[in-house]
């Protein structure tokens, strides 16, 4: 009975808090009422979909206003998680460039406590979110270059092709977990993944990646999809995966290492990478050259 009462109190308390911000270990729970007390602004957006152009009138609180009110001096990228498992990441530059709205109302209609919207005019609506639950400030390691580098094409060539990998039909590809298990010992960790178009996610292996599939596209690239990754977070033409100091590059997506560095905004590139037998390969050599193929693991020695 005591446990049931405690559970009931906890459940009621949670229900009263619609948004949680986690900043440098500090957890702030904010109720809908508290959000309503902050300065409200109105933003009108235009979105185009199959039904035509939609004009929407959003009302809510700017995230910068929420941060100021709760004493958060944000200089870090942001991660947003929804109640249904969707996740988006916003870079520091994007946070500074675009107005990020926590919408409490659309076209005059109020949202429920657990259904607040993330609206970012200027950014594609795949970055928008329904039912935003947690906002986390964090320092990503995306710009920390790896020490170990492997190539996806070499790993995949030794793996069995999965025809119609669950739950998909009429496609073929590879199970991501199988490829990761060949080169990573980390299965309870977060992986940084980025597509050729720059769309990136930091995803937990257990929650998102363990059932994900690399589906082969007609152009030779792969789309990371499925399993537990919500549809809007699928990564087309996946180009790069990193966990800790170990990276997998999808060689077909790049001309050379310099292009990888540009996508990942690495500040300094090495002159060469070391192969397993200790020889060096200049990074100006294009990935199409045979010297990069089937050479195993490369080291970026600093």
């Amino acid at each position, binding site marked *: 009975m005591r446990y049931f009462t405690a559970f009931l109190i906890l459940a009621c308390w949670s229900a009263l808090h619609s948004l949680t911000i986690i900043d440098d270990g500090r957890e702030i729970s904010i109720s809908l009422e508290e959000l309503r007390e902050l300065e409200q602004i109105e933003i009108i957006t235009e979105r185009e979909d199959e039904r035509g152009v939609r004009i929407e009138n959003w009302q809510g609180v700017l995230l910068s206003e929420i941060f100021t009110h709760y004493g958060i001096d944000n200089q870090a990228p942001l991660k947003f998680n929804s109640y249904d498992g969707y996740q988006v990441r916003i870079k520091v530059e994007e946070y500074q460039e675009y107005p990020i709205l926590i919408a409490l109302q659309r076209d005059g209609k109020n949202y429920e406590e657990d259904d607040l919207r993330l609206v970012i005019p200027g950014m594609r609506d795949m970055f928008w979110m329904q039912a935003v639950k947690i906002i986390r400030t964090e320092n990503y390691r995306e710009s920390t270059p790896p020490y170990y580098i492997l190539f996806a094409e070499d790993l995949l060539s030794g793996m069995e092709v999965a025809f119609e990998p669950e739950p998909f039909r009429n496609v073929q590809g590879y199970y991501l977990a199988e490829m990761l*298990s060949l080169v990573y010992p980390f*299965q*309870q960790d977060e992986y940084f993944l980025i597509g050729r178009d720059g769309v990136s996610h930091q995803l937990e292996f257990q929650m998102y990646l363990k059932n994900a599939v690399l589906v082969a596209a007609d152009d030779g690239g792969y789309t990371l999809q499925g399993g537990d990754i919500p549809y809007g977070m699928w990564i087309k033409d996946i180009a790069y995966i990193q966990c*800790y100091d170990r990276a997998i590059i999808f060689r077909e997506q790049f001309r050379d290492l310099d292009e990888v560095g540009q996508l990942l905004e690495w500040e300094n590139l090495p002159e060469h990478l070391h192969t397993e037998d200790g020889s060096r390969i200049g990074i100006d050599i294009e990935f199409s050259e045979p010297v990069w193929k089937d050479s195993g693991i490369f080291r970026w020695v*600093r």
Partner: protein
Amino acid sequence: MGKIIIILFLLSLVACSPQGYRFSGNIDSEFYSEQTGNLKEILALHELNAEYALLIASDGIAVLISEPSFPRIEIYLDAKKISTRSEFLPPVSNLNDLSEIVIYNWKHPVVDRQTPFSLRLLELQFLGESSLNGHLVRKYQLSE
């Protein structure tokens, strides 16, 4: 008389128990070592190729370090216990009473998407990561 035999037996077990720390993970066979010195040299001495080393202390605290950090950590004898220290790596690398070094090498066969190293890592809870002088060290704790 029976009690004395049991006590003698237990004492002999203690006396015969392996000293030092155990090498395990993605290696051909596990063994114990009492070798002290810098980790890179110890691995070379035992002819072990490692990309990562997971150092586990007897209290269940563990740190994972990568190859570039190996020469920066020293294994030394401290009051009859073997411990680790480094002035260059983050302070979490200083472990008291080292009990095991688990080796990762990607060339080790993968069975059911696991290697001995990854299975051992699953027994640990990730606590956090810390960086110093460009070296990233991950801290873990044995799950209860």
